[in-house]
C-alpha cells in the first residue's frame, strides 16, 4: 500500500502548494488592487488612524485632528474651529473623500507624501507613528473674519477675495452662504452623506466656493481692463485726455444702442478719461473697444490672466473668459458690451482681485496662492511659498495712470463709501446685469494704500444692486473698506 500512500502524500503536498500559491497571489500580487476596493471598510477606518496635520492661518487653527482615545475605532477626529468662515478654504475630511485644502494637500496632511519620506524613516526607527504635516495658509484671520461678517451682514449671497499685490498671497477668501464643515467630518458615513446631500440640494449652494468656482459678469469693474488696453495703445494718453461720451452710443449693425446707466448723460458729450471712469459712463468704453478692436482687448485680458492656464492655488480655480461663441471681430455691438463687462464676459472674483492687484503692483500680476508654508509635525519646514510673477499686464506708466484714475473713483466718483481715513484708496464699482432678470450684481474692486499697496480686494454681492449705479458702490464698497481696514490697521 506504500506506493499509493506516497502518491496521496504528494497529492496533499500539491494541495498545500496550491493554497500557498494562491495566498501569495492574494497578499503579494493582487493585494493593492483588492484592498483599495470601496467595499473594504478598512480604508475608511484607516483614515482615522493617522493624526492629520493642522491647517492654520498664522496663530489661528482652522482644522485639527483631536485624539479621542487609543481604543476608539476612529481615533482621530477632524475638527474645524474656524467653522463656516473658513469652510470654503479648508474644505472637510469626510469618511470617504476630502475636499478643498484637505484634498489639495492631502498627501502632506496625512503624512503619505514623498516629501515626508525622511520623516517617516526617522519615525520608523524610533517606533513612532508618523503624524501628518501642518499646512499654514496665507489667510489673515482679521481680514477673513471682517470680510465674512460684512458680507453675511448684507444678507445676500456673494464672495470676496483679498490679495497682497506684491506677492499674490491670498489674505482673505470668503464665500457666503457657507457651511459648517464639522458635521461633514464625523466618522459616520450615513450621517455625513445625509448632511452632505442636504447641503448639496440647498438652492443657495453653500458648498460652492463662489470666489473661485463660479464666474459672474463683471460689469463696470471690467472697464479698468478696457481702459488699460486703451492707455497701452498710445503712450500720449492720460487721465486728462478727452474722449467722446455721447448719451447713447450707436451700435453698428443692430437696432440696439449702448446707453449710459439709466440713459443718463455723461458730462457734456466729451469728457476726460478719468471722468469716464469716475462716473462709470458706458459710451466712452464702448467706443474705446470698438476703436481698439477685439484683438487688443483680448490681449490685454490675457495679460491679466484671463483665459490662461487654469490656476491652482492649490484649489482649482474656474476659468474666466472674455467671450462665448460670438465673433467679437465682426460683431462690434457685442464687443462694446463685452468692454463694459456684459454680454458673455465671465469673471471669477479671484480674477477681478488679480486685476486690481496687478494695477496696484505697478502692472505686475503675481500668481495667487494660499499656502504660506508646510512643516512636519516636529516643525521642520518642508516647503514655503515662493511668490511668482504671472505676467506683466501693463507698463509701469499705464499702471500709474490707472491708479490715479481709480483713486479718483473713490475720492470723487462712485465709490466714496470705500474711503478709509488717512489712506489713499483706489477702486472701481460695478453693477452687472444678469440675463435672467434678477436684480443686478454689485461689484467692487479696490486696493490700498495707492502709494505702497498692501491689499487688493474684489467682491461681489449677488443681486446686490436694487437700482442705480450708486448701489455697486453703496452695497459692495463698504465691505471692501472693512477688509482693507482690518489689514491696514496694525
Amino acid at each position, binding site marked *: *500500500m506504500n506506493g499509493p500512500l506516497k502518491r*496521496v502524500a504528494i497529492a*496533499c503536498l500539491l*494541495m498545500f502548494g496550491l*493554497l500557498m500559491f494562491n*495566498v501569495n497571489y*492574494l*497578499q503579494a500580487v493582487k493585494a493593492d488592487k483588492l484592498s483599495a*476596493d470601496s467595499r473594504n471598510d478598512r480604508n475608511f477606518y484607516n483614515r482615522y488612524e493617522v493624526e492629520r496635520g493642522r491647517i492654520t492661518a498664522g496663530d489661528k487653527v482652522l482644522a485639527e485632528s483631536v485624539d479621542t482615545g487609543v481604543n476608539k475605532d476612529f481615533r482621530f477626529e477632524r475638527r474645524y474651529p474656524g467653522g463656516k468662515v473658513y469652510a470654503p478654504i479648508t474644505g472637510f475630511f469626510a469618511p470617504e473623500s476630502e475636499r478643498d485644502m484637505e484634498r489639495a494637500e492631502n498627501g502632506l496632511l496625512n503624512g503619505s507624501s514623498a516629501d515626508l519620506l525622511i520623516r517617516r524613516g526617522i519615525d520608523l526607527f524610533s517606533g513612532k507613528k508618523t503624524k501628518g504635516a501642518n499646512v499654514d495658509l496665507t489667510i489673515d484671520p482679521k481680514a477673513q473674519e471682517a470680510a465674512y461678517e460684512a458680507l453675511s451682514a448684507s444678507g445676500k449671497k456673494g464672495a470676496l477675495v483679498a490679495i497682497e499685490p506684491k506677492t499674490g498671497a491670498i489674505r482673505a477668501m470668503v464665500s457666503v452662504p457657507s457651511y459648517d464643515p464639522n458635521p461633514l467630518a464625523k466618522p459616520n458615513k450615513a450621517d455625513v452623506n445625509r448632511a452632505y446631500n442636504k447641503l448639496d440640494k440647498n438652492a443657495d449652494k453653500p458648498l460652492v466656493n463662489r470666489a473661485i468656482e463660479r464666474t459672474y459678469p463683471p460689469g463696470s469693474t471690467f472697464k479698468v481692463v478696457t481702459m488699460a488696453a486703451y492707455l497701452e495703445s498710445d503712450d500720449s494718453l492720460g487721465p486728462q485726455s478727452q474722449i467722446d461720451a455721447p448719451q447713447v452710443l450707436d451700435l453698428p449693425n443692430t437696432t440696439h444702442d449702448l446707453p449710459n446707466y439709466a440713459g443718463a448723460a455723461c458730462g457734456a458729450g466729451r469728457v476726460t478719461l478719468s471722468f469716464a471712469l469716475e462716473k462709470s459712463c458706458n459710451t466712452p468704453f464702448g467706443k474705446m473697444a470698438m476703436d481698439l478692436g477685439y484683438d487688443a482687448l483680448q490681449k490685454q485680458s490675457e495679460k491679466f490672466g484671463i483665459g490662461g492656464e487654469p490656476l491652482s492655488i492649490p484649489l482649482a480655480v474656474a476659468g474666466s473668459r472674455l467671450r462665448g461663441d460670438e465673433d467679437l471681430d465682426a460683431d462690434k455691438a457685442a464687443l462694446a458690451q463685452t468692454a463694459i463687462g456684459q454680454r458673455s464676459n465671465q469673471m471669477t472674483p479671484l480674477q477681478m482681485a488679480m486685476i486690481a492687484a496687478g494695477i496696484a503692483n505697478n502692472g505686475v500680476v503675481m500668481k495667487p496662492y494660499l499656502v504660506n508654508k508646510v512643516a512636519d509635525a516636529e516643525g521642520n519646514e518642508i516647503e514655503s511659498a515662493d511668490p511668482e510673477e504671472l505676467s506683466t499686464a501693463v507698463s509701469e506708466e499705464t499702471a500709474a495712470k490707472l491708479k490715479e484714475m481709480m483713486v479718483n473713483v473713490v475720492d470723487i466718483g462712485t465709490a466714496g463709501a470705500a474711503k478709509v481715513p488717512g489712506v489713499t484708496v483706489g477702486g472701481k464699482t460695478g453693477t452687472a446685469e444678469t440675463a435672467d432678470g434678477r436684480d443686478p450684481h454689485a461689484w467692487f474692486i479696490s486696493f490700498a494704500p495707492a502709494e505702497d499697496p498692501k491689499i487688493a480686494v474684489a467682491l461681489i454681492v449677488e443681486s446686490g444692486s436694487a437700482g442705480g449705479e450708486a448701489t455697486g458702490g453703496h452695497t459692495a464698497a463698504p465691505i471692501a473698506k472693512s477688509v482693507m481696514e482690518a489689514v491696514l490697521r496694525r
Partner: protein
Amino acid sequence: MPAKRRVAQLAMLAFAVAIVMFAYANVGLAIDQKIPAGMLGYGLGLGGLMLVAYLVLAKFAPWADPLILPLVTLINGLGLVMIYRLEEVKAFGASASTQLMWTAVGVVMFTVTLIVLRDHRALQRLTYTSGALGLFLLISPLLPLIGVSQNGARIWIGIPGLGQLQPAEFAKLALIVFFAGYLVAKRDVLALAGRRLLFIDLPRARDLGPILIVWGLSLGVLILQKDLGSSLLIFGTFIAMLYVATQRTSWVLIGILLFIGGAVVAGTIFDHVYARWEVFLDPENQAFYDRELGGSRQLMQGLFSMATGKILGTGLGQGHPDLIPLAISDFIFPAIGEELGLTGLMALLMLYALLVERGLRTSLAARDPFSKLLAGGLSFILAWQVFIIVGGVTNLIPLTGLVTPFMSQGGSALLANWILIALLVRTSDTARQPPPQAIQDEGMTQVFQR
C-alpha cells in the same frame, strides 16, 4: 530505528506554548497598551494542559511521533489568540474562555483516548458498529426534537442543558474507522480488474456498490442538510482511502466523474449550490455582493482582510478582522492573514502540512493494512479539510462551509479533532516501536495486548 525524542518533544511543546503566549501579550499590548490581565491564567492553563497531554503521551504512547502534539498545540493556541483578539473588540459570538474550555475538554478526550485505547487495532473489530454509528451521527440532525437548523444548514443537534453539537465532526471519525476496516476486508475483491479501457483497468461493475453507496450518502448530506463541506469531505476521503487500499487509479477517476455528476445535478436542482458556483466565478460582482442569501459579501470581506494584511500583516490587534462576518469560525484563516500577513499564513499552512506529513509518515511506517488505512485516512481528511475551507475562503475553489481544524471556534470540531490526533498518535506509537523490544520494555503494562 526511530528514537523516542521525548526531550525534543517537551522543548517543542514549551516553544509552541511560548509563541502562543507571546502572541497573546501582543494582542493585549496592541489593543489595551498592557499585558492582558488574565495572561498568567491562560498561560498556566494552556501550559498545564499541554504538560498533562505530554505526560500521558510519554507514559501511554512513548514511541509516538514527537512532532504531532507540539504542532497541534501551536495551531490550537493561535486559534485561541485570534478568538481572544476578536472577543476584545466584541466580534459577534467570540469567546476565548469557551474555546479554552473546549480545548481543555479536547485534551482530556485526547488523554482518555490514549489511556483507554491501548491498541487501535481493536477498532477493526468494530468496523460495522462504527459504520452504523457514523451513519447515525450523520443523519441525527435530521431527526425531530434534537435536530436544529441554523444559517440555512441542518447540521446541529441540541442536547438539553449542554448546548449544541455538530455530529458530522464525530461522524467523520467513525466513518474513517469503518472505511479502513471495510476496505481491509474487501480490498482484494475491489482491486480485481474488469475490462481494460485505454490504459486503465476498470473495476468490475458488480464492485461499484460501495462507492455508489458512499456517493449516495454524500449527496444525501448535501441535499437534506445543505452541508456542502461535509459532503465533499466524506466523499473525497473515501475515494482516497479506496485508492490506497486497491492501488487502482480507476477508482479515483470514477470518483471524480461521480463527483462532477453529483455537483452538476445538485447545481442544476438547488439554487444554493449554484449560487456558490456563481460567486466563485465572479465574487467582486456587486449584485452577488449585495445578495442576502448565498452572496459574496463574506468571501469578499475575507479577501479584503487578507489583501489589507499584505506581506507582513498589520500586527495582532492592529487590523480589522472583526469586519469579516463570522471571522471566529469559517473565516478565521483570512483574519489571521490580515494581522499576521502572508508570512503568518505561510507559516500556518506549513504547520498543517507538517502535521499531515507526520500523519502520512505514520501510515507509511505502519505494519498492518488496517493501521495504514486508518492513519492514511485520518491524515488525508485533515489535509482535505484544510484544502476545502482554506481554498474556499481564498476563492481557490467554490466556498463550502467547514471549520478550520483546531482554529475555528466550536466545541464539536475541537473535540473530534483532538480524538483524531489521539488515534494518529496511538497508531504512530505502534508503528514506531521496535517490535521485539517493545514487549520487553512495556512489560506488565501491556494488559490489552492481543
